[in-house]
């Protein structure tokens, strides 16, 4: 086999795939009769029959463990918020996985394909964590499900706005894969109000809750800037004011699309209910 450089080859040494393919030109035709798997690739699961063949694989006999006296404290029933750091968020924006020129919500972060959420495992959304808070520079309008004071300060210092909002499991399921959801041909569900133990968080203006008074939020924005010692950028004079102040209705899941609507991707039309009872059901 001619392994050296061929005439006209690029200065970059030959690619290994090219090398292998060139070798194949001198070999018989690859066909059903002469292929095989790598030696040792398939490991058969065999029951051991030697010294320790039939025993408990070193785990001993039945005893106290998970089943008997291990206390399960109900952590598996609590709402989970898988973390996403400010570092990650900035990376997603700078690698063009999220468009920061539009409001960022759970849907746009899930659409990047780099954040996983399992509502059936009691995961209720994003916990935006403060890793990289000092270096965060992106101006965003972001909606997350949980955020600390430092994170809120970091985002508002960079000229952005943040909202914390609650989605129930049905709404989250629709948000996981919007294309698949629209193809199902069911109406967009209405967002449920938070459970009793979360109401306090989402009505708190210091947490930028989506059910809190907007007047109080702007007050708290100023208070936070005083506490952390930065000058609050004036978003009223910002050229992206429209984008930065775009908010969803408490019953709304997707921006611009109301609950009760059916989206037909094939014909590119939206079906809206006309019955009074349906209108009443889906109204805020």
């Amino acid at each position: 086999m001619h392994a050296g450089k061929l005439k006209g080859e690029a200065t970059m040494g030959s690619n290994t795939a090219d090398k292998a393919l060139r070798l194949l030109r001198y070999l018989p035709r690859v066909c059903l009769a002469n292929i095989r798997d790598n030696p040792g690739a398939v490991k058969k699961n065999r029951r051991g029959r030697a010294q320790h063949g039939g025993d408990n694989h070193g785990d001993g006999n039945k005893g106290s463990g998970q089943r008997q006296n291990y206390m399960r404290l109900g952590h598996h029933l609590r709402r989970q918020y898988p973390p996403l750091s400010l570092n990650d968020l900035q990376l997603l924006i700078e690698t063009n996985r999220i468009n920061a020129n539009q409001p960022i919500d759970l849907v746009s972060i899930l659409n990047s394909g780099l954040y996983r959420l399992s509502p059936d495992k009691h995961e209720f959304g994003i916990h935006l964590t403060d890793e990289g808070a000092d270096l965060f520079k992106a101006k965003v309008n972001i909606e997350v499900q949980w955020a600390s004071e430092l994170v809120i300060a970091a985002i508002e210092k960079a000229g952005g706005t943040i909202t914390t909002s609650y989605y129930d499991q049905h709404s989250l399921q629709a948000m996981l894969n919007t294309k698949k959801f629209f193809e199902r041909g069911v109406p967009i569900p209405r967002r449920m109000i938070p459970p009793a133990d979360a109401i306090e968080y989402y009505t708190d203006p210091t947490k930028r809750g989506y059910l809190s008074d907007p007047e109080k939020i702007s007050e708290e924005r100023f208070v936070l800037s005083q506490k952390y010692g930065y000058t609050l950028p004036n978003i009223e004079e910002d050229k992206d004011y429209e984008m930065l102040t775009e908010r969803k209705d408490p019953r709304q899941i997707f921006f611009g699309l109301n609950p009760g609507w059916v989206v037909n991707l094939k014909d590119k039309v939206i079906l809206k209910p006309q019955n009074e009872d349906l209108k009443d059901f889906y109204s805020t």
Partner: protein
Amino acid sequence: MTTFINISRLLRSCSTLRTTKHISVRYSGFINSPFLEDVQIKAKYEVTKSPSEWKYVVRILPPLTVPELALRDKYNSTFKPQGDVKDRPYIVCRTKNHMIPVYLKISQRGVKRLTYVRKIQGDIWLLGKELETYLQPMSKRPLRMQVNEFTGSIIINGDYVNAIKYWLTERDY
């Protein structure tokens, strides 16, 4: 013969009659289930085709493939796009997510740590040598390294992920 056939046919028809009467049909398979007919929708609805509303639908549809990189003047995150490395003796290609393919594999309950450098094209042995001279001062023992030419990957014993990523970004990879 003919009578026999007739009788058997008659019997068969009787038996099918009986079965259809008493056994409810379970559409278990694709073949024996009926076609879906138009569902009668009683609710009144309005069909709209306004572009101002449809743009919100387009906005939330997930992209099929990884979006192209839009180059920026300044990066605030750790990310740095790959420079022009076309004429180098070897190339460490970026992944489809535009990241450097250097990974840490932890096994044996955290005892064994292997650093993988993947997607190497060109003179992989030269890269192996250069990495060895760079990484050897960080280790007390001789560096253990495996260069696999066919898969285009280098495996190094120990956690050198950040060091190698730094080294590669310095060289525009």
